[in-house]
Structures are given as C-alpha cells and as structure tokens.
C-alpha cells in the first residue's frame, strides 16, 4: 500500500446540522423502538393479577400467554414455588379482557408432544360474577407426555408377549412346525386325505366308502326314475289321485246340498217349537184362570157350608 496524500473531501454544507439530524434520527429510532417493545410487552396495560396453582410448573415460562378462545388475554409474570409444594403461576390479565374470566372459569395447562405448553382459560357461564383481582385458582394439567411412560410399559409388555409368542419352543412355533409337516403331507401322494385320515388304510376305506356311495347314488337314481313312472306316469298314482279328488269334490257338493235341505227342516222345526212355546204360555194363563175359578168355587162352598146347617159338626177325638 502506498500512502498518497489527497485533497480533503469536498465540504458538505450545513454539516453540523446534518450530523445533529442523524443524531436525532438515531435517538428517535431507539426511543420509538423502546416504546414499541414496552407496549408489546404490556407495560402500558392496566392489569389485574391472577394466581394459578399447579402441581408442577414444567413447560411454563415467564412471558407465556394464557389464551381464551385462541386469543391471548394474559401473560405469565412470575412463577414461584408454593410454600407447601407445587407451583404458583402469577399472571397479569389486562383489565379490558378481565371480564371474560368469571368465578366459574376453568384454567388448563396442556403439554403437547411437539411444541410448547399451552395455558388456556374456559368460561362456561359468562353471566357469573367476574373474577376478582388476585384470585387463586387451580389449574388442570393435561399432559400428553405423561402418557408416554405408561405407553412404554404397555409396549414393553407387548414386546415380551410377542417374544414369548415367537420363541423357539412357543406354541406358535410348534404350530408353524406342525403346519409345515401338514403342508409336506399335503404335497405328498396321499394329499389332504392322508392328512385327515392319518394313515393309508383309513384313506383307502374312505375311498371305498365313496365308491359305494357312488353306486348307491346310481341305484337311487334308477329308483327315482321308476318312482317317477309309478307316480307321475299315465297309470301312475297321481292321475288316480286326481280322479279321486274330483269324485270327492262331487260327493262334497252333494253333501252340501243335503245339508242345505237339513237347514230348511231345522228352520221349520224351529217355527214349530215357537208355536209350542206360545201354546205353553196360553196354557199357563188358562191354568191361572182355572185356579181362580176353583178358589171362587171353594169360597162359595165354604160360604154354603157356613150357611148350610146340615153340615156335620166335626169332632175332635183325642187318642
């Protein structure tokens, strides 16, 4: 490098003023950024405090949001160890959002397998009285990772069972060996029959039985053919049966006619019976009249007896 004296750079007009402008610009930028960050961190928000009690504060960090319907309405300000164990999570809730939280609100802390934890608030009854400043509430913890140990234990047990199942002397291995032997037998000369019967003699017997069954079926076929002729042939049973049925129909028609006649006779007999009933009623009346007449005659005879002195004085004899 060579040093070459050069003339000074051309003078800039109002350079002091421009330098001051640059300084002001820097101050404004830094100041505005500081104000923006303070606003972003909620320094200017009027807040109320909420204390959440949790068994452990794992996954919770200072500055974390508490959401309500997916919208952040509070920010964790501090996490401290509770005197009796557990954790106290102190939140700042802006006053403008505090009305969303009521006495009956529920707070949950969920930890996912991926990503951070989530602090959520749920309000079932919006008409309940609003949550007071400094309220303490329990937080319900739903932990997906807590399931992992149980899952691992189950998986280990499953693997153990699988290992037992697929071991050298396990039932599955024995079954597979037997299946292999069976497959070998199936591929052998006796095939499936050999597998089913176990030895060749039984297989031969089965084949003989099948042959005899075939012969029997042939006989049954011939018998069926003969039966067909006997039953459905021209001189078979069926035509005669049909004729018999026709005769039976005609006999039934005659019987129906006879029954109709009997019905008429019975109707007449019913009329006669009615007449006899009426006559019987008249006989009752007549008898009543006769009874009346006889009482009158008896009364008259009594009067005659009283008035007629010829009557013999009755005597009463004591034994």
């Amino acid at each position, binding site marked *: 490098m060579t040093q070459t004296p*050069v003339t000074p750079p051309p003078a800039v007009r109002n350079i002091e003023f*421009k330098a001051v402008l640059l300084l002001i610009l820097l101050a404004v930028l830094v100041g505005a950024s500081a104000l923006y960050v303070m606003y972003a961190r909620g320094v200017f928000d009027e807040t109320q405090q909420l204390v959440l009690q949790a068994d452990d504060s794992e996954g919770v960090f200072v500055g974390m949001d508490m959401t309500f319907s997916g919208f952040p309405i509070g920010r964790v300000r501090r996490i401290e160890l509770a005197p009796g164990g557990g954790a106290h999570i102190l939140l700042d809730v802006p006053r403008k959002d505090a009305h969303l939280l009521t006495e009956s609100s529920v707070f949950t802390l969920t930890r996912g397998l991926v990503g951070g934890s989530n602090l959520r608030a749920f309000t079932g009854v919006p008409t309940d009285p609003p949550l007071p400043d400094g309220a303490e509430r329990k937080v319900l913890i739903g932990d997906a990772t807590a399931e992992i140990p149980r899952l691992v234990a189950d998986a280990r047990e499953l693997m153990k069972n699988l290992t037992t199942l697929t071991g050298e002397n396990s039932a599955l291995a024995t079954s597979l060996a037997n299946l292999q032997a069976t497959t070998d037998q199936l591929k052998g000369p006796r095939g499936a029959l050999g597998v089913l019967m176990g030895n060749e003699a039984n297989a031969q017997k089965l084949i003989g039985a099948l042959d005899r069954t075939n012969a029997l079926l042939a006989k049954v076929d011939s018998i069926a053919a003969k039966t067909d002729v006997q039953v459905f042939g021209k001189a078979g049973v069926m035509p005669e049966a049909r004729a018999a049925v026709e005769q039976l129909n005609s006999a039934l028609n005659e019987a129906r006619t006879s029954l109709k006649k009997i019905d008429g006779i019975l109707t007449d007999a019913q009329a006669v019976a009615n007449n006899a009933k009426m006559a019987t009623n008249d006989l009752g009346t007549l008898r009543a009249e006769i009874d009346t007449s006889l009482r009158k005659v008896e009364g008259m005879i009594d009067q005659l007896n009283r008035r007629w002195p010829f009557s013999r004085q009755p005597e009463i004899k004591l034994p």
Partner: protein
Amino acid sequence: MYVRLINSADVLVLFRSAVAALITPHARRPPALPVGSVFKSTARPYHCPMSSTSPSHVPASVRGGALLQWFTGWWQIVHLGALILVLALSPSTYERATRATLAREVYQASAPILLWFLVLSSLISLVIIRIVVVTALSYGLSRYSLQMVVRVLVLELIPLTTALFVALRVAIPNAAEIAALRVSGEFDALTKQGIDPLRQEVLPRMMAGMFSVLMLAAVSCVVTLVLAYLTVHGFTTAALGSYTRAVGHVFAPVVILILTLKTFLFSLAVALIPIATVAYESRAAWLRMSAELQGLVRLFSVILLIEMASLVGNYY
C-alpha cells in the same frame, strides 16, 4: 493537512492480507512500543531475523516475549479505549473546533453508506425471512416462524453484519488515516501547537465509527421488523396486534439488555481496535502494513467473542 489514504481497493488488499496473516503461523510482528509512547513517531529500528524454526523449537524466552507482547498489545487497546471514553465523557471535549470535526466525521461515516447498506440489508433480510417462513410452513411450525425471523435477524445477524460492514468501510480507513497522520508527523505538529491529537483527530473518528454502527444497526433492525411483518402478513393492519405480541415475546428484558450491550460493544470494538492498533505500532511496522492486519484480526476475534457471549447469554 488532511490525508485520505485508503480507498475500496486498498480495503480489499488489506482484507486479503489479513486472511493470509490468519493462516500463516509466523507472521512477523514488530515489537510494540511502551504505553507511554502514544502517538510519538519515533521509529524504532526493527530487525527481525527470518527464522525457519518451527514453533516447538522456539526458545522459551522468545515464547515468553511473544506472550508479553500479546498482553501489551491488548493492554494498549484497553488503555486507549479508556482514554477515549474519558475524553468522550468530558464536556470540555465538545468545544467548537472539536465539535465541527466530530460533526464532519459522524456525517461522513454514516450518511454516505446509510442508504445502500439499507438496501443491501433489506434484500438479505427479505431472502432470509422468506426462507425461514417457507421452511417453517412446510414443517407445520408457522406459528414460530415470526419469532425465529426476529431472533435470527434482529438479534443476531444484523448487529454482526453491521459491525463487519462498518469495520471494513469506516473503521479501517479511519485507522489508516490516523496512521498516515502519525507517520507524516502531523501529530507532532499538533502537539507542538498545543493541540491534543487524541482529542482533535482520534476521538472524532472513533465516535464516528461507534455512531455509524449504532445508526446502521438501528435503521436496519426497524426496517427488518417492518419487512418481516409485510412478508408474513402482507399489506394489512389486521395482524398488528398478534405481530406486536410476538415481538413482545422475543424481546424479554434480558434479551433487550444483551442486544443493547452487544451492539454497544460491537461499536466500541469496531471503532477502537483498528485505530488503537495502528496508533501504537512503530513506523517501520506500519510501512509493512502489519498494523492494519493485526487490527483486523484482533477486531474479528473480539467480534467473535462478543457474539459468542451474547449467544450464551441468550440461549443458555
């Protein structure tokens, strides 16, 4: 007399030489002058014999001397930094003549490069924002993309890029100017006139370097935040609330403190180390250009350390 020594091509040459010095284990280093010899151009003859011995064969006394030299070099930087800070905080420094020089240096260190650095950083930010957002979306993690963008760009990349940029564009040329003034005897002349060269020439350049880092970093961070919002949500004001909340999540008090400290330390390192290195080097050493290289290496080391410390503070 005003001496302009370095142009862009020279910076490139310096940078290449710095890389060569980094990968060469036996860069010949001149012995540093004692602390009391600040800005005295008494060139001490320097004869460093060429040696072909490997480091393991270097005698213990020589190694001890190198260690002492290393400590001395850093002590000189710290000493000059303390002097400059004291001067910067003294109201008597800001008299009319110094104020004019200060204004000129501040303006020339920031205004000419502000616009195109802004364009450059915006382009890079846009590309990185797009990459982060699309990648996060493809993994189903889009809710974290905004925070990731703000963390990666505003907290980490922009301050670092700004520091490196100002180091190459402003601090190294300033250091070269100081070295040239010193070599040309300008400092002696000023001292004879009763003017403190430290206050008259060094302080304005250092403060200009610091201001340049802070200014560029602040503007770029704000522009990047706006670009991140526009890239993720588009031209709408509907998402301002959620965006503000996400930004609020990132900028926890500790993070803000670390960012502020980091940017300030970056600016201090960028402004101080190159100038301090050339200020204490001998004339013969400066003529071999080793002072700027040494300053560049020291600057990069310090920037790396600050960045590592900030990462540890933020994420451990």
